[in-house]
């Protein structure tokens, strides 16, 4: 039983990271019907931005670690990635917005390859060790479950960001505009909503969340490299589909489900099956509920 709870704790921490990345996928998909393949690589850039920021601020060593500096690094990398996301949207996706969806998809793949290879060129192909911006500590929970303070931070920061995002989407004018654009872009445009600007904001928001995920993953798994975004990117997208793409709570549930099931497979089966379990769950869920767990079933109009 202790083993089960241990894997559950690890899975929740890892799943929160998937959930943060999945949010970016689901928001962009909700508005543009575009699978933004470059999103996983934005997460990679987020991790590297935090790495270099921490170096520049001099918080790389345990003695200089402080929560304030860590927050600064987190915010900095979020801002950098928000700008990156806006830039990608402006330069690559906006010109193909009126083209067919597969064209946009290939463009997204092109951006993804570009970020990966530019990352190899700029950051170097060898893995870098993420600085310990917060001194690591291990905490024993009742029942003998071991968690690190980093894992707790991952979960807490993710929850704060997700609550913040939900409030933003539900309560602010921009959030309302985002929902309107996702519902019907042309109608929203007729109502005077500047759809182009709202789409840019969506990219900024999603990319900032991905950057946060990159920072948090750097804390818990300190090895970062330019191709680190490929697999988590795909799995986060799977998580978004699993939860019902376009649905924000769905992305959170999908992400957590994915993280937990992965750790259960690692704990009870074999780590070689880790990459397959995500897709097995996805296929089972989609065969039972073709629109995902929380997705709305769209009836086809003739």
């Amino acid at each position: 039983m202790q083993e089960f709870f241990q894997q559950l704790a690890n899975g929740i921490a890892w799943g929160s990271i998937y959930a943060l990345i999945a949010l970016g996928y689901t928001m962009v998909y909700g508005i543009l019907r575009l699978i933004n393949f470059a999103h996983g690589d934005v997460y990679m850039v987020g991790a590297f931005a935090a790495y270099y920021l921490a170096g520049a601020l001099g918080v790389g060593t345990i003695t200089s670690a402080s929560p304030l500096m860590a927050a600064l690094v987190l915010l900095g990398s979020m801002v950098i990635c928000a700008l990156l996301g806006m830039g990608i949207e402006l330069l690559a996706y906006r010109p193909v917005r009126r083209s067919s969806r597969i064209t946009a998809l290939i463009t997204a793949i092109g951006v993804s390859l570009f970020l990966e290879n530019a990352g190899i060129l700029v950051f170097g192909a060898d893995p870098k060790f993420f600085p310990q911006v917060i001194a690591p500590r291990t905490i024993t929970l009742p029942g003998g479950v071991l968690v690190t303070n980093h894992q707790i931070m991952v979960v807490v920061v993710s929850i704060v960001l997700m609550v913040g995002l939900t409030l933003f989407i539900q309560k602010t004018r921009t959030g309302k505009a985002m929902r309107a654009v996702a519902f019907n872009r042309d109608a929203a445009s007729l109502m005077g909503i500047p759809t182009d600007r709202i789409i840019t904001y969506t990219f900024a928001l999603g990319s900032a969340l991905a950057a946060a995920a990159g920072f948090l993953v750097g804390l818990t798994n300190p090895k970062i490299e330019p191709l680190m975004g490929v697999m988590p990117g795909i799995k986060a997208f799977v998580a978004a589909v699993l939860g019902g793409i376009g649905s924000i709570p769905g992305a959170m549930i999908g992400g957590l489900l994915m993280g937990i099931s992965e750790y259960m497979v690692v704990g009870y089966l074999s780590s070689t099956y880790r990459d397959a379990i995500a897709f097995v769950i996805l296929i089972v869920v989609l065969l039972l509920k073709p629109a995902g767990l929380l997705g709305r079933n769209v009836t086809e109009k003739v």
Partner: protein
Amino acid sequence: MIALRRVLGLLAGIAIVIGLDWAGRLGLNPYIYGVLVLCAINVILALSLNLVNGITGQFSIGHAGFMAVGAYASAAYTVYASPILFGPGYASSAWLTAGAFLLAILVGGLASAVAGFLVGLPSMRLRGDYLAIVTLGFGEIIRVAILNIDAVGGARGFAGVPQRTNLAWVLGAAWITFVVIRNLMKSFHGRALLAIREDEIAAEALGIPTTRYKVTAFVIGAFFAGVAGALFAHYLYLHTNSFTFMKSIEIVIMIVLGGMGSLTGSILGAILLTALPEVLRFASSLRLIIYSLLLIVLMIARPQGILGRRELSFPKRRAPEAPRPTPAS
């Protein structure tokens, strides 16, 4: 007349394939020869994916998975079954080797077709992006499953598969793939597939059994992907890393770049995309950056692909025009 033209075309095709192969062995350096072989294998992959994505209008991004099934099935057959079927010393006879290899290619194609059927059947409840992500998932599941089968080498890769693929085999296979898919496209069944692409509901209303056609397209597409996999398995060292999600994406890029639904476009896209990274080798570390930027620029500049839905063809000789009726004065 038509029969004669076909026979002549067949003979010309065989002559070109054998001629190119001999030229390849005699004159070309091994590097270019290798690139040509890979080009032809990619042409088979692109054509077969185009049948599913471009002609039937489904969206599969798991083609590398089918290729992997074909590759491993045919390799396992060659290593374990063919010495039993053909006798232990069969490899000393060129004819027996060729026969065994032909059978291996068919085994690869059939194994992959079965996988295509299994994937295609349940996937037909899903459309668009959901179908895409499920095919991607199947591709990854197949890869991870193979990684865990020890008899085919698992994570070490499958050693001991004899190298039997040469330019003649791949060109012949690519040519057969092209002819089969082109003829299919021009047949009654091909028009049904095109109707599904244009409007699935309307096609169904016209009495086209859409599910059966979609599954058939998946099965035929998977068969040829398996053939490509079999050829690949008997050419380069066989390892699951050759069949990742990126390989599937690469094939999708080929058909989009060439023009979805255009068969000659697929051939063009496959050749371009295989040759481009080799041509860009002079730029060494910038190679893949240039490659990805070219991809983005091409998509922005020409979203419908190079050929769109048109086909490249030799200009046909026109029948002499009938004299126009002179307007009555």
